């Protein structure tokens, strides 16, 4: 995957100046306030843009495939929420673990899944991450340290908690991260996971994507008080941030991961955002007041970050444009690869209900150069 790799490689040169220890006391930011991380160099910033653009492009490509009838079943995307999965996963190390949800394609890309495997998965091809066994974003590449989500929400919260438990039991400085939406906070498993993680101060980072709705159900019908307030009652910090600001997400995640790694326990990060598409492709969003779209269009995480790269970080407008164009071209290539992948062999349909042996999780890609330079961590090749 050329464009991203190049950028990641160059990031290694600039790492020396920011190997500070994690800042555990950074104050929470108000939603809307622009964040600027001192832990990111130029290459990282290009990466953040690139991964967000990749998510956008891949999902747009997928929508086309869906409209062409190449994607069976339904289609779900995370348009408008790209900053969350990209910014948060970018703060993790290779041996950290993730359970990635249905709006979080960017995190799969950061971990190392390539768009062809995503597209192939949606099309039910043999080359998809699950080889046609499951669809949508119901996948996790175990070789990249991910456990694939199930539909039932937020079932991955207890699972991530269990991974964090194993890190704590073994004394490993590792972190598990998972996501859930605002609606999912009403479910009992959310509570069970957060309570359990709080009791044992487990190294887990919970990322709440509050996009205002659970399918069609607005926040008012999901909870009476913003769930970020509950974190304190589980015994750990809750931070409310602007989910459309990728550096704010990165910073909050970096701090949370560092705290977790040092034995400080979980963090709940609430990212305020807006789902700009329907819950699924069939959803006309008639339940959303039109002015909400206008408001949030102006806060598009990718456009906004591109502008900031130019205004504050010495990128030229051309450079930003080129990154986005390169990504788009790359995704188009990936779509061809995916389309060339065959359908799975029906004769295999009943294979693998049971495992014959153990298949341990592998390590994920961790492009953040802070990790890349750590002598104790082997940076994975892309």
């Amino acid at each position: 995957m050329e464009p991203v790799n190049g950028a990641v490689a160059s990031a290694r040169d600039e790492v020396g100046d920011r190997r500070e220890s994690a800042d555990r006391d950074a104050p929470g930011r108000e939603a809307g306030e622009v964040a600027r991380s001192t832990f990111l160099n130029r290459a990282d910033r290009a990466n953040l843009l690139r991964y967000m653009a990749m998510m956008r492009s891949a999902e747009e490509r997928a929508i086309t495939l869906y409209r062409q009838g190449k994607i069976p079943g339904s289609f779900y995307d995370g348009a408008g929420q790209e900053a969350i999965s990209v910014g948060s996963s970018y703060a993790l190390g290779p041996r950290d673990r993730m359970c990635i949800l249905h709006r979080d394609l960017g995190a799969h890309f950061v971990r190392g899944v390539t768009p062809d495997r995503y597209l192939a998965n949606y099309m039910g091809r043999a080359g998809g991450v699950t080889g046609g066994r499951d669809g949508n974003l119901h996948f996790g590449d175990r070789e990249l340290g991910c456990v694939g989500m199930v539909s039932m929400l937020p079932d991955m919260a207890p699972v991530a908690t269990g991974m964090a438990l194993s890190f704590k039991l073994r004394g490993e400085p590792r972190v598990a991260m998972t996501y859930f939406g605002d609606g999912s906070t009403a479910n009992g498993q959310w509570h069970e996971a957060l309570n359990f993680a709080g009791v044992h101060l487990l190294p887990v980072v919970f990322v709440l994507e509050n996009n205002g709705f659970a399918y069609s159900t607005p926040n008012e019908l999901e909870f009476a008080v913003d769930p970020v307030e509950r974190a304190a009652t589980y015994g750990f910090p809750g931070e409310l941030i602007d989910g459309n600001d990728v550096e704010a997400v990165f910073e909050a995640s970096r701090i949370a991961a560092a705290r977790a790694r040092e034995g400080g326990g979980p963090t709940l990060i609430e990212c305020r955002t807006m789902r700009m598409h329907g819950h699924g492709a069939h959803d006309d969003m008639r339940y959303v007041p039109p002015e909400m779209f206008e408001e949030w269009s102006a806060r598009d995480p990718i456009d906004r970050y591109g502008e900031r790269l130019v205004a504050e970080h010495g990128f030229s407008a051309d450079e930003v444009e080129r990154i986005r164009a390169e990504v788009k071209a790359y995704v188009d290539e990936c779509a061809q690869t995916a389309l060339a992948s065959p359908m799975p062999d029906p004769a295999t349909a009943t294979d693998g209900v049971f495992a014959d042996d153990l298949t341990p999780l592998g390590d994920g890609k961790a492009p953040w150069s802070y990790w890349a330079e750590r002598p104790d961590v082997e940076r994975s090749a892309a």
Partner: protein
Amino acid sequence: MSAATEVTYLEAISDGLRQEMRRDPSVLCIGEDIGAFGGAFKVTDGFIEEFGAGRVMDAPLAENAIIGAAVGAAAEGLRPVCEMQFADFISCGFDQLVNVAAKMHYRQGLAVPMVVRLPSGGGFSGGPFHSQNPEAWFLQSPGLKVVAPATAADAKGLLTAAIRDPNPVCYLEHKGLYRYVKGEVPAGEHEVALGEARLAREGGELSVITYGSGVHLALEAAADLDEDIEVLDLRSLCPLDTEAILASARKTGKVLVAHEATQSCGVGAEVAALVAAEAFEDLDGPVRRLTAPDVPIPFSPPLEQAVLPQLDDMKEACRELLAY
């Protein structure tokens, strides 16, 4: 018989529900996205406008709370109709269903009239969490009635009966039939008694005993094969119409039990066991089952088709038994 109109299975469900809500102010709906959105499958489209947000209640994403609240409301004299967004999500409300709702009358003499609507079934790449047929779980949970209509008329008639019944009823509505199945449905009040199977096709050589999507597969196979095949549509899985099952088995002497749910300990096992115990002397051949094998339902079309019983599988199974 009242005037009948041709409607889809999905419309029949909506109509039945709307009619009961109009008739009985104690009927209310509770579920995720059933209000302004009209439900994931639009069964309650327009309901909130007609009945208000109190009787068409958008619930938080919390299935145990939905079913538990329904139990409480039912105890207080309401008749809640819960919607699981997909039948698969009943796993998240399972405890309230099997422990609280199901056992209440036996333990406490307290009736809890409530319906849990369960959009079930596969065939359209719903994958492992949007394709399940969980009826057998309910049959292993004494105290729950379970119905699974195959036709539009039964969809309305069984829903009406389920709502009027003083017990918790699991109402399995097969998503594959929503728009695929159309039929004459009595326009007025229409109730189909729980516990009565329907002879969908008469025949003398082989009984295909089935329900839900299996009925259509069986009828199509019977028509294609042009053989003397009887098709019994169970409709109610609990109470099960054992008389109708045994009468058909005794008449034809050969039984194929068919369903889309996975095999082990499924409804097919129960029916086969019943036949093997009670109609043994009349059997002219082994009791066979046509079901999904014991695997999660895969997403990709070729895999899903390999797992879910197809028309050819049905014909093959019929042929084999006929030739026995």
